[in-house]
């Protein structure tokens, strides 16, 4: 951090160093590698087994043998309920509690950064991971699919066919959709992380909440609650595979996640700026 830089420059360099630290950590690499293993496992399993009849297993699984790009779509579908929230929970739960646990939090606060800026930078780091995680699944899926299966025009849910470059564009769109989907969970993780100095507690609580939210979303008795659950639109990314693209779920999802970010961001702010930092 340069002492002559203004507050803005200081925040920027703090953000860059946070992201650099995050992506240099061995744990972050392990998480991303675990995510990349999902499409590889799917592709290898389909390659060595007999043809999958349509309608069995997750959507798109039967299409993989004809088109390797479907490995990416299938892997994203499979990783949404547990693997993505799990990795994001680990990163988001670690944000503040991890520093507190290491005893580095007070040093960070001694620097002229200020608590609000530190909170923002930590959240931005978690968001960067939210973007990297689905992208890893998508790229690993496309790569392994291209390596093991032929790649050709992709049939959308509507029956229309798009060329591979456009299919890759849709993959990136889905990654963006999933990144937005995980923003709310990250905010929850950030808040939980300000409550404790035990990072594992915050991580576990975040992951458990994501599972609870998905379970509640399955109970028909709680139908009134469903649109309010942060996991409600997680599987809505299928709408990006229609022709023309159905943006409704993207918009609803973004609005919902923005609400979660506002509420839990404000809670994290309230907690963090009033907290006595002892470690």
């Amino acid at each position: 951090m340069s002492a002559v830089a203004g507050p803005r420059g200081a925040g920027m360099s703090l953000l860059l160093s946070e992201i650099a630290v995050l992506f240099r950590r061995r744990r972050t690499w392990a998480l991303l590698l675990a995510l990349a293993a999902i499409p590889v496992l799917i592709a290898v399993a389909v390659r060595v087994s007999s043809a999958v009849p349509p309608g069995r297993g997750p959507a798109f699984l039967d299409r993989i043998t004809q088109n390797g790009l479907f490995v990416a779509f299938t892997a994203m579908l499979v990783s949404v309920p547990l693997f993505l929230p799990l990795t994001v929970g680990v990163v988001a739960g670690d944000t503040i509690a991890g520093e507190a646990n290491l005893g580095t939090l007070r040093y960070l606060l001694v620097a002229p950064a200020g608590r609000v800026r530190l909170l923002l930078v930590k959240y931005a780091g978690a968001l960067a991971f939210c973007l990297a995680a689905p992208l890893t699944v998508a790229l690993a899926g496309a790569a392994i699919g291209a390596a093991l299966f032929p790649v050709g025009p992709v049939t959308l849910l509507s029956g229309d066919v798009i060329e591979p470059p456009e299919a890759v564009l849709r993959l990136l769109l889905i990654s963006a959709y999933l990144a937005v989907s995980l923003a709310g969970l990250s905010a929850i993780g950030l808040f939980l992380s300000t409550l404790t100095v035990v990072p594992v507690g915050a991580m576990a609580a975040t992951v458990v909440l994501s599972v609870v939210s998905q379970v509640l979303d399955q109970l028909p008795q709680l139908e009134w609650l469903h649109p309010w659950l942060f996991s409600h639109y997680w599987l809505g990314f299928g709408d990006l595979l229609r022709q023309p693209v159905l943006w409704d779920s993207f918009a609803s999802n973004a609005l919902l996640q923005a609400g979660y970010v506002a509420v839990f961001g404000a809670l994290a702010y309230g907690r963090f700026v009033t907290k006595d930092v002892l470690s």
Partner: protein
Amino acid sequence: MNHRNMGDPLTTRAAKQRRNRAWLRWVPAVAAPAVIAAGVLVGSIPARAGDALADKTPADVLALLAGHNAHTFSGTIEQASELGLPELPATGPSSGAASDDPAASAIEMLTGEHTARVFMDGKAKVRIQVVDRFAERNIIRRDNDVWFYSSKDNSTAHLTLPAHARDLPLEDPALPGTSPESATPEGSMVPPTPQDLAAKFLAKADSTTAVSVGPDVQVAGRAAYNLVLEPRTGGTLVGMIAIAVDGETGMPLSVEVTARGAGEPAFRTGFTSLSLDAPDAALFNFVPPPGSTVEELQFQHPAHPSTGPGVPGYPGAHTDPEQLAAGIKDKAGSYLAGTGWETVVELPAESGAGAKLGTALAQNPLLSQAAVVVPGGRLLSSALFNVLLTDDGRVFAGMVPADRLQATSSAP
């Protein structure tokens, strides 16, 4: 708030001041949910139209509706029903079971919620997409070619309309259940559009129906007249039907059916978004995707319903019992009792409909649970209609109370 340092002798004045100001830090945490709650409240109040629609008599609204000429639009239709029938599992990523048997497919369309996108460019270019989770069912018509596509099993069916059917609308409301659409292969069924239903209910709007115009409503952001049909007889389950008629074009935007004595509609279908611009022409060019199995269907002219374009063996190929009733009305051997809203349709045992329905009931555990054993047969009961399957294989259906069906079935 943090009181951990309370009583600490080292508490300084600055710390005290900080604590006194601490509650301010929680203001955003309270404000954010409050703002969201306020936003939701404001959003739930129906927006008033900029200009109120000119007052119209029921006859004027009926004329507006009858004369509507909006056949070029794209929109999203949502359908929701709470008929009291068991909800079949929604078509999830891996479930294909719901469409495996047609009766279940018909029930699936009748229960729960469905979303469909409709694109129309004139009557001869239509595309309907039934949006399921990670699946889609498509019907695409371009002039004489009609394509059916289901993403679940990547299957395609093709139907060539004869030249004389060129200008025939895909869904002709005057011929419910007999349009080429009813020749859809199993699993490709679409929910009825507001146009279909409005036409069907208006056909009943004779002297047995009281027609009035309620306060204007907003549907898909458009101001609409609220045409209310109320059966004058107490012998039907239907209490009220509200049709939203677009103030500008006369197009039916939504249909709500409320059961007698109920407060909330048991069935609702309507546009959630609507644009009157011509859809992208490329949407109507359909080529079967690679790897898809294509089945050629034979077209049978709707003018000869006795030869039946309804798919033989697929009693569920009609999207609602009303349609089912209307569709089979003309077929030889069926019998009608009662008139207007109290119509009861009977299918004699020879038609085999009873046997088919019986098989469908036996095969589907959810359906067989819903069918209650009553004296003389089994009854499939819902808020708006009843179907009675007698022990001797006859089927009675109608929008009438169950005892009416039983009385009809036991009458000589």
